[in-house]
């Protein structure tokens, strides 16, 4: 990547970045960098990354950042935003942090309509720990803990985050899924998500991403899995929120 193509919000000193070759994280972070540039938000933003591969982004941006774990990026950003509403708060997490160990935080922030932006990278595996099954691992997909392929009988169906959140979140929330194979649309989704935060609401973007290291795929297979297999189970697009919360539930007494 040339110096010129780097988003201004990136921290040049930490480049080249630490992700594996072919990893989608760099692309998601590029889209985020461009979204921050476009909205001129880098001076107002705090970026929090989680444990797992997302933690390698701890000094990725030229913005105040911190590292935490177990999906706790979300409550840290919720707490920060509540105490400092002028701040733009971005919680960056993987599918393990967001959909398994920290799911309660994700759902609760969406239900409370906390004005933060959560970006969740879905690469269908726990990558940094060595490629175990994630909530998003597809049926039949081989991982270290599903060596014969994920079996529905044993572990149920893969977790569809945006679909689940859309049903639960506050109607004002913004919920979308993009993919690193279509970086411009992904950037657009992130811009919209950040804008929704600026309007005082919760926003969430899941980014379908790649992990050739743990998938043990070459470049062509990697891209094929992302574009054909993952995208067919995980449709990209926007998910209107609040399907389950539209009825006014105000108790009148």
């Amino acid at each position, binding site marked *: 990547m040339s110096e010129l193509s780097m988003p201004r919000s990136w921290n040049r000193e930490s480049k080249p970045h630490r992700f594996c070759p072919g990893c989608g994280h760099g692309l998601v972070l590029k889209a985020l960098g461009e979204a921050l540039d476009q909205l001129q938000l880098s001076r107002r933003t705090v970026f929090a990354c989680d*444990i797992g591969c997302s933690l390698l982004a701890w000094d990725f941006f030229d913005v105040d950042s911190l*590292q*935490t774990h177990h999906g706790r990026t979300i409550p840290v950003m919720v*707490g920060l935003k509540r105490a400092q509403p002028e701040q733009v708060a971005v919680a960056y997490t993987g599918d393990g942090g967001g959909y398994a160990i920290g799911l309660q935080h994700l759902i609760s922030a969406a239900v409370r309509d906390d004005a933060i932006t959560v970006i969740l990278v879905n690469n269908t595996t726990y990558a940094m720990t060595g490629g175990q099954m994630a909530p998003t691992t597809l049926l039949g997909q081989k991982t270290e803990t599903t060596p014969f392929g994920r079996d529905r009988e044993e572990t149920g169906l893969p977790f569809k985050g945006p679909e689940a959140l859309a049903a639960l979140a506050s109607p004002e929330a913004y919920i979308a899924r993009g993919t690193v194979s279509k970086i411009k649309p992904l950037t657009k989704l992130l811009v919209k998500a950040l804008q929704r935060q600026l309007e005082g609401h919760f926003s969430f973007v899941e980014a379908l991403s790649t992990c050739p290291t743990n998938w043990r795929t070459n470049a062509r297979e990697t891209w094929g899995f992302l574009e054909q297999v993952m995208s067919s189970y995980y449709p990209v697009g926007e998910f209107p929120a609040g399907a389950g919360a539209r009825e006014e539930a105000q108790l009148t007494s």
Partner: protein
Amino acid sequence: MKEAVEGEKRAFMSGNEVVAWAALAAGADFMYGYPITPQNEIMHYWRRLAPEYGRGFLQTEDELSAGFATIGGILSGKVAFSATAGPGTVLFQEPLSMAEMMRIPLVVVIQQRGGPSTATVIYSQQEVTLACFGGNGEGLRLVYSTSSHQELYDYTIKAFHRAWRYRFPTLVLGDGYQAKMHEALTLYNPQERGWGKVPAEPILGLDRKGSVRHLRNTFSVEEELAETLRRSLADYRKAAEELVEYEFLGEWGGELLVVAHGIVGRAARAAVRGLRAEGRRVNFFRPITLRPFPGQAFQEALRASGGALLVVESAQGQLGRIIKEALAEEESGSFQTLYRPGVGITAEEIMEAVPL
């Protein structure tokens, strides 16, 4: 910000209410909390009082979130705190560990209940080990154990100041009795007692001076961690000299030293007074900071008492273990250590450490 307490006033209230007033008086901006008995009324009082004084509150989805959201509030430069108990204290080890690593002034009030697990909602002193040494680290925390409503008020206020000055997570260790009992105390405005404002400032984000900051929690190699820990440990050791607090009752020539902390300290003090009235030469020592432990003062008190010791606590030796470590230090001739937190140890290093 509107002052919560002006001048001095006597009051008669529950310990949980005392904590809420102390946090207000100290100038705390925000509380993040999750229900668990017996600390609930801290949240209840805070939530009712907060709007009047322009302070904030959020009830989170669990204790993990309460702890981490408090950290988030603190990072923005606000004086924030939480309160918990029992199984909640177990979950709080995760945010407390992070605060320890990143030197975040996280303040948590703990009202101990029975353990292990959910046990009772009533009372115990079984959260001493968790408060002092919980988490996957070295226990670089400040832990105040209070024994009266006055102390609960004084040390809750002090906790905010000390946490922000020394940047170690700070715990006020109460218990279910202190939480629920009603007794009298004097509420005061800490500024009128020379406390000044809590020295809070943004750690991340808006209104912070200086270049971009990347706060790290994970390290690639052992040596990076060792260096970070070395600095924190050195800071902690230095701070310990200024932070330790205790109560001693007695004098040289004693026959026994009774040691207790927190609410049990009241019973122990009364017992010692009673025995002394009967002519027994019994001394009394109460550590107020359980961590750092006032080891030197304890050793002097023990020497003044002829070396005989009675440790009293509502737990199976949690204070006792701390005392034993302090005793081992006393007998350091036979208690040597080779401590290398977070890094490997080779046979050569051990051979070098063995005294000639």
